[in-house]
């Protein structure tokens, strides 16, 4: 793999870790959901880079599904909050 | 909408007629269809304004990406540098958009632009509440938002 690819993957891996840190630290549920949401967006990016690196366009299908469906989790969490679920839970 | 449907129909017809079922050919068919529609547009009232939308759309996309990039850099700068330059706050933005679809479009575009985030629409749909990150020049911000709304709404008129 080329340096560019590796560097970008490393950068995004680091980003994933940062997102995880936020998810772990919270403090409130919306913060965590934002972290999860970011996580899924970054996966789209990683998939793109990996698709380039491996020359496998089929991976884009994964990215499409991710782009189209992953936000549903956030919607679910929001629904929980709206219906009175405690935000620090 | 009718225009888009016709365009699609023509594209598909092209594909069937040429017997080449590749995506490239469909694209070509859509392009030809667009041209044809642009030609006949003056005669058909239902198609009014259809042909103009494409260039507008392209211009809008360009504008939008520019905004996206610039504002992102601004936020990024603030994130990277230790002190906070931001002056966040929630402002109410009066809406020109009326239909649900338009309001949603505007709100989402605003959300996509860094520095602004649509929080909610008032019950009477006249105001969009926005969380903004840089309120140091509120007037400028409001101007920019209004410009964005204008350009977005233009796409449908």
């Amino acid at each position, binding site marked *: 793999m080329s340096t560019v690819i590796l560097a970008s993957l490393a950068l995004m891996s680091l980003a994933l870790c940062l997102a995880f840190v936020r998810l772990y630290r919270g403090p409130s549920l919306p913060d965590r959901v934002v972290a999860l949401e970011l996580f899924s967006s970054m996966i789209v990016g990683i998939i793109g880079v990996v698709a380039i690196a491996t020359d496998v366009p*089929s991976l884009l299908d994964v990215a499409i599904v991710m782009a189209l469906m992953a936000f549903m989790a956030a*919607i*679910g969490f929001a629904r929980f909050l709206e219906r*009175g679920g405690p935000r620090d839970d | 909408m009718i225009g888009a449907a016709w365009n699609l129909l023509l594209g598909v017809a092209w594909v069937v007629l040429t017997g080449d079922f590749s995506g490239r050919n469909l694209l070509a068919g859509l392009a030809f269809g667009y041209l044809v529609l642009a030609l006949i547009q003056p005669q058909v009232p239902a198609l009014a304004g259809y042909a103009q939308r494409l260039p507008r759309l392209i211009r809008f996309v360009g504008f939008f990406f520019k905004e996206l990039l610039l504002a992102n850099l601004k936020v990024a700068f603030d994130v990277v540098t230790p002190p906070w330059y931001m002056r966040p706050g929630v402002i109410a933005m009066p809406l020109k958009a009326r239909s649900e679809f338009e*309001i*949603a479009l505007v709100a*989402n575009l605003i959300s996509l632009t860094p520095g602004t985030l*649509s929080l909610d629409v008032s019950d009477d749909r006249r105001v969009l509440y926005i969380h903004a990150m840089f309120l140091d020049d509120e007037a400028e911000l409001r101007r920019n938002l209004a410009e964005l709304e204008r350009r977005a709404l233009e796409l449908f008129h």
Partner: protein
Amino acid sequence: MVRSGTLILSVAARLLLPLQLLFSLFLLLRGHDEPGGGFIAGLVASGAFALYLFAYGGRATHAMLKVSPRDLIGLGLTLGVFSTLPALWQGEPFFTAQWWTIPVIGFKASTPLLFDIGVYLVVIGSVLTAITALVDTDREDA
């Protein structure tokens, strides 16, 4: 309970639903050649309906669906089982794939495709059955 029901989400759901459904059909039909297939397609479609459900509630979703999700389950399962049988008629072990070419459009129909459609329906039916039931009970107690 806080402010709920948002215009933006509703519009998004209305826009995304056809898009997601179309995409799911796309995944279903070309699943034999590219990533996709009945399960994945079914899950995407159920996600789409779930979004609609969140935005508009159970009744509206029922009204839009026209059929009960339970019917989809039964239909999908029956289709799945029946798709294994044509082989018997040909004197081959059950589940042996049968391929036909539909003359005019040149579309390749096959029992695996029928089977995959069955899977698709079952997935949609099952997920929706579960989610609508959950949302309904939520509404009852709220």
